[in-house]
């Protein structure tokens, strides 16, 4: 075990340039993945804020008795997707319109009759704010006889949905691409170390060292590089996060990774290091 560590650190000392290169490439790869992840996390956070405002408005036919509406509202609240149901009568609809739509304030004030219908405002639960669930709920609402029209900003919801899917997909693709690049670069740098030590490895095999023993220091070396690269990338991402956050005060609600996410990132770095060295050492041992 002590020998294992000694060999791994000797490898660093023997090839400081290559080792630094490996660590920085791992760090850079993880930095890119992490940066994108951070953007995605913040985007999701922002979307979640918007989503809470997703609501369905069902306009009620004039002259529907209040009793019918109250019964229906109870019924609607028991839909599995529905978070809350609120009733807005004609008068408060007018008051709301006057308060929110300044341009129409004067027009509304002069009206003899209230042109606005009463409505039910339905909010959905967190998991049910996608376009599909919203449409399903809207359809069910339309089957009530007293409901005149249902509005739910379909396009807006769909666009939100698409944006989130695209964000996830792009994140995944970029993440995978960088992971592949990282493995290749680590594999290459470890391969250079392996070739530098080809003579030593040949002698090890000759005197009867096991493949596991020969692989050990290289795997450890890869894992340590992955670990250092992972830590460095977190430092870089945090620096970027602070810098960006300070220069754009309007994005004050930015969030950073949580500890488990950081740990996953570091583990990912270690896995990349191990994977890269496993590939190149394995190939070398098979070919000699």
């Amino acid at each position: 075990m002590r020998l294992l560590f000694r060999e791994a650190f000797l490898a660093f000392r023997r090839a400081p340039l290559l080792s630094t290169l490996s660590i920085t490439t791992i760090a850079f790869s993880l930095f890119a993945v992490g940066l994108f992840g951070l953007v995605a996390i913040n985007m999701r956070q922002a979307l979640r804020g918007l989503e809470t405002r997703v609501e369905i408005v069902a306009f009620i036919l004039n002259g529907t008795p209040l009793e019918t509406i109250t019964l229906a509202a109870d019924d609607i609240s028991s839909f599995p997707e529905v978070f809350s149901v609120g009733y807005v009568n004609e008068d408060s609809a007018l008051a709301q319109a006057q308060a929110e739509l300044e341009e129409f304030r004067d027009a509304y004030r002069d009206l003899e009759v209230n042109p606005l219908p009463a409505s039910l405002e339905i909010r959905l639960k967190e998991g049910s704010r996608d376009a599909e669930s919203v449409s399903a709920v809207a359809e069910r609402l339309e089957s009530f006889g007293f409901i005149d029209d249902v509005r739910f900003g379909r396009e807006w919801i769909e666009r939100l949905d698409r944006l989130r899917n695209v964000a996830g997909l792009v994140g995944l693709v970029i993440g995978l691409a960088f992971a592949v690049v990282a493995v290749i670069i680590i594999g290459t740098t470890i391969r250079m170390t392996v070739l530098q030590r080809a003579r030593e490895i040949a002698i090890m095999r000759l005197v009867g060292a096991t493949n596991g023993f020969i692989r050990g220091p290289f795997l450890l070396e890869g894992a340590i590089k992955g670990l250092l690269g992972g830590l460095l990338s977190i430092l870089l991402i945090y620096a970027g996060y602070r810098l960006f956050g300070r220069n754009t005060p309007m994005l004050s609600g930015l969030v950073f990774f949580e500890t488990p996410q950081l740990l996953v990132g570091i583990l990912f770095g270690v896995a990349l290091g191990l994977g890269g060295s496993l590939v190149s050492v394995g190939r070398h041992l098979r070919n000699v």
Partner: protein
Amino acid sequence: MIRFNHVSKAFAKGESALLDVSFRVAKGEFVFLTGHSGAGKTTVLKLIYGEQSPTSGDVHVLGFSLPNITAREIPRLRRRLGIVFQDFRLLEDRTAEENVAFALEVTRARPESIPSRTSRVMTQVGLASKMHAFPNELSGGEQQRVAIARALVLDPPILLADEPTGNLDERATRGVFQLLRDINAGGTAVVMATHDLNLVRQTTNRTIELRRGEVVYDSAEETAPREGLA
């Protein structure tokens, strides 16, 4: 200890390096493997230490048998074989002592046993005073002695030597050859590939001669005249 049973070895291009080779090496024997360049001497040795696998026939060494040997067994076989080459194969950035200790370290020997085992074999090869010299500070003969010490440090019952004197002058050749005979006198079987017929003639050791991959003479069988030695 070593048994070749109708062994043939062909490489991809079709030319066969060995053709129906059969022989045995007994415990403690000293065997010369002779023949012209390309006759198949190195191939025989590589088959013994599992670097190559026979195309047909089988090779038995110390209870292991090729071609059935597993990847896991090869290191166990090699720990019981000492192997030296024409080009010494020492690590230039380590001292003589470290080169020998290396074989113990990488085969997981008990760390506290390493210094004494190392100095014992360094004394055996006559280099007790050069333990701390680097290979480039040693003569060819001395470097080969370090390589022999490394081969001996695991106490193998068999020592394989592929042209061990090929890079040495007369005097160094005699010294290294005498060392191999001393090692053999201690009970270690030695298989030595060489085309130095002067060495072969000096002794009455068993000689196996190869020509184009076939055994054309084996002094243990006394079937053919000593071709090529005449």
